[in-house]
Structure formats: structure tokens, C-alpha cells
């Protein structure tokens, strides 16, 4: 009896270990840039745009992968984002965004969702690397230094100002669709 219990525990442990290993591999694989750009419409649009930005190629050689900017760290936030992202795979499968043209047609809608997620989590993905506390304002351009200090004062988050820095600036389309009449109120 004792040996049966021992073998059961051993088997359970082994299965858990294999499960954890497989889980980690799946998470890692689905977080890789290769996975993200395995769809043609991703590779030919957002990835091409990203390669022209300073986030992709820069003096320090630090280049975040897709998931560094689009998947927050931590088990629960990662899993939540994966579940949400599964919707994109679903829409790819049913053909809503399976060509670059269809992808473009839906781009602003998808971008708005990403911006909202980033606003809701205080731009957690950006803050994996960037932190107000470690910014040397003396080494920034005057406008950047001022705006960052204003952002700290006003509790702004990265994405409020930094939309369109890694992909096409579709937030300009967002501005076109609004009349802005509600944004003309002065606060001074």
C-alpha cells in the first residue's frame, strides 16, 4: 500500500513537473516575436513598422519583443492577457483580420483596446523598463523633461502621450473622428 501511495505521489509530481514545463514552454512560445509574426498580416504591417522605430534598433542594443510591450509581467496578468489575446486568434481563424487589408480596417478599433488596457494598468508594460524615478531630466530634451515632470504631477501614464511610437500613428485617425468641441475647455 505504502509503495502505491509513493508511486502515486511520484507520478503526480512528474505529471505536474511535465505540465509546468509544458505550460512554461507554451507561454514562452506564444510570447515570442516569431509566434506573433507567424500571421502574414502581423508580419507585413505592425512588425514592419516596428523595425523602423528606435525601440527596435538603437544605440544601446536593447530591443523589446512584441510581448515585452503587449504582455504584462506576472503570472496572473500574463494569463489574463493571453486569454484576451485568444480573441485575436479567434478572429484570425474566422477571417475577420486574416489579410493585411482586413487588419487595417480593424486597426484603430484594436489599437484603442490596447491603449485602454495600458491606461487601465498604468502602462505596466512600458514600466518594465522605464521608470520616472530613474529618469535623469538633465539629460532629456527640454520638452521631454518638462512633460515627464508634468506627467508625474498630474498622474499621467506613458500611453497618454506615447501612442504610435512603435507602430503606425493611428491615434491621428482617432483625432480626426472627433470634433474636439468638448476638448476646448481651458483649465487656466
Amino acid at each position, binding site marked *: 500500500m505504502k509503495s502505491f501511495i509513493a508511486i502515486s505521489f511520484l507520478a503526480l509530481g512528474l505529471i505536474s513537473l511535465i505540465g509546468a514545463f509544458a505550460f512554461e514552454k507554451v507561454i514562452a512560445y506564444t510570447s515570442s516575436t516569431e509566434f506573433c509574426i507567424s500571421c502574414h498580416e502581423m508580419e507585413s504591417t505592425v512588425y514592419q513598422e516596428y523595425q523602423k522605430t528606435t525601440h527596435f534598433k538603437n544605440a544601446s542594443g536593447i530591443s523589446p519583443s512584441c510581448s515585452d510591450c503587449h504582455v504584462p509581467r506576472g503570472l496572473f496578468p500574463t494569463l489574463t492577457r493571453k486569454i484576451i489575446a485568444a480573441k485575436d486568434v479567434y478572429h484570425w481563424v474566422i477571417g475577420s483580420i486574416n489579410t493585411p487589408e482586413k487588419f487595417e480596417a480593424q486597426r484603430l478599433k484594436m489599437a484603442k483596446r490596447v491603449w485602454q488596457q495600458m491606461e487601465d494598468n498604468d502602462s505596466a508594460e512600458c514600466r518594465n523598463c522605464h521608470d520616472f524615478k530613474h529618469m535623469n531630466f538633465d539629460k532629456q530634451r*527640454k*520638452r521631454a523633461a*518638462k*512633460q515627464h515632470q*508634468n506627467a508625474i504631477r*498630474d498622474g*499621467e501614464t506613458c500611453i*497618454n*502621450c506615447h501612442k504610435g511610437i512603435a507602430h503606425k500613428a493611428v491615434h*491621428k485617425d482617432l*483625432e480626426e473622428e472627433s*470634433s*474636439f*468641441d468638448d*476638448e*476646448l*475647455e*481651458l*483649465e*487656466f
Partner: protein
Amino acid sequence: MKTFAKIFYLLVITGISLPAMTSEINWDNIKAESITLFYPGQSSWEWLLTKHSAAKSVRKGAPCLECHEDEEADMGKIIVSGKKLEPSPIKGKPGSVKIKLKTAYDKENAYFQVQWKESQFSSGNTGKYKTKVTLMLGDKSVKEYPVAGCWGVCHDDASNMKSFKKGDKKRQLYTSASRVKIKRTGGGDALVDEDALEEMLEEKRFLEYWQHRIDAKSKSNLSHGYILEKRHKLKQTKFNSTSTVKNGIRTVIFSRKRNKNGPGLIPLEEDHQYTLGIALHEDFVSGRQHYVGFGRSFSLGGNDSVITAIKQ
């Protein structure tokens, strides 16, 4: 005697006063402020409040210089090329021009010296005035002026701006307070009532401008007025200005009596902070095709303004 009376009369009607003509300022003792004027294209007040990337900061009252100091030449280059905010670029036009500004005052007058290297660029434009240099003065009574300078009265529906429609009547600069409502497309033609405009005029809630214009034959002509619900031109010019050019450097010296206080005139007092705007039209252009400098705080004496006139 009759001849003297005629000369005196001519001087009076042209608004040229003897003390203002005979400026005895020793400009060599006054430090120049270097200012870059740049091509603004169709960047209107409404654009600043909405599409400008730091629109939120503008709505909170952040002045342009807070972020954009020393960026003027880069911005001018982008805009004049037509990459942004300019649907009809003038090929080859420089994006900016550097000027030097010196200011001084005495008991009677305030003095402004503007110097710049005249551009050799010619687009083939023709028009009445080859060059126009304009100074515009106001204070926080026009609340957008200390924030945005000249941009505060440059609206999206002004002539040749983005929201100006074919068939609209000519609109120049105007203050937001002169309109019933400011929309994304500007304030249109719906003015506040006449009593309110009259009150604004009495309370000095307008901007005063002085413009020195030089025609193709190098003859000067002055224009004096104020901006309220439109650009008003005063019947009598109550400032003086002279223009000289030496080795390609143009020098225009403005002077105005400090205690002028009629309709459209802002008294120039010590211990009061104003905002000074500067614009330059070259190559016979008009309207938005000029160079403009960010609004700078200005005072006669004191030490809390970007530009401080030195007492003589």
C-alpha cells in the same frame, strides 16, 4: 510761420511726435535677446488645444516656451516643407529666421530694436509690401495670450486657415472672448453683444500691434491697430518706427509713448507684465506665410520676465 505750422500739422496727423523720433538710446549698451521666428503654417489656437501632442498641457496654461525653446528652427523646417500643417508649401522657403531684439524705456517712451539678416530667398511673389515686421503687445487680460502668444488669436477659421471655407467673409486675428463660442473650427462670426465688446475695449482686453512695412522700393509705411473681434486699424498711427539696412542686416526701431491710453492703446507701465509677440513677413507674403516667435513675457524693468526693457 505758415510753413512751420504746416510741418507741425503734418507731424501731428501722421502721429509722429518729436520725442519719439529722436531716440537717444545707446543700443550698444543693451544686451540683445536672440529669438528664432519660425513658419507656423496652419497651427491655429484650436489646433493647439486639440491635435497638438501636448494639447492637455496647453489647456492647462503651459506656455509654448516651456517645452519648445530652441526647437523653433526644427519645427519651422518641418512645417514649411509641407510635411505638417502646411497644405501649400512655398518651395525653397527657409523655415525660420533669427532676429535680435533689444528693448529699452525712459520716462516718456518705450523702444524696441529688431535686427535680422534679410533673406535672399525669392519665390517670385509680388505684392504691396516686401517686408512687414510686427510687434504685438498684450497681457493676461486676453487670457490665451500669455500661454500661446500670437497663436492665441490665430483661429482655425481665419482666412487661409484650415477651417476657412470658400465664400466665408475675410477673417483675421480675433480674441476668443469676442465670440459666443469657440469650436474646433474656430469662433465663426457669432460675436458677443456690442456692450460686451465695448466693455472689453474699455478694460483693455485686446492686443495692440505695431507694424512696420517696407515696399518694393524700400519705402516704409506704418500700421497701428488692435485685435479684438477683428483687426482694427487705428486712423492715426501713434507709434514711430524707422528702418535702415546695412550689410544685409535690417534694423527696425519702434518707439511709442508710454502713457498712451485711448481706444486700442495699452499704457506701458513699470511693474506690469505683458506678453510680446513678434512676426515677420518677407518675400511679399501675407497671412499665415510669415515667421512668428513664441510669446515672451515682457516688462519695463523688473526681473521676472523673459524680456526686460532696460531703463535709460
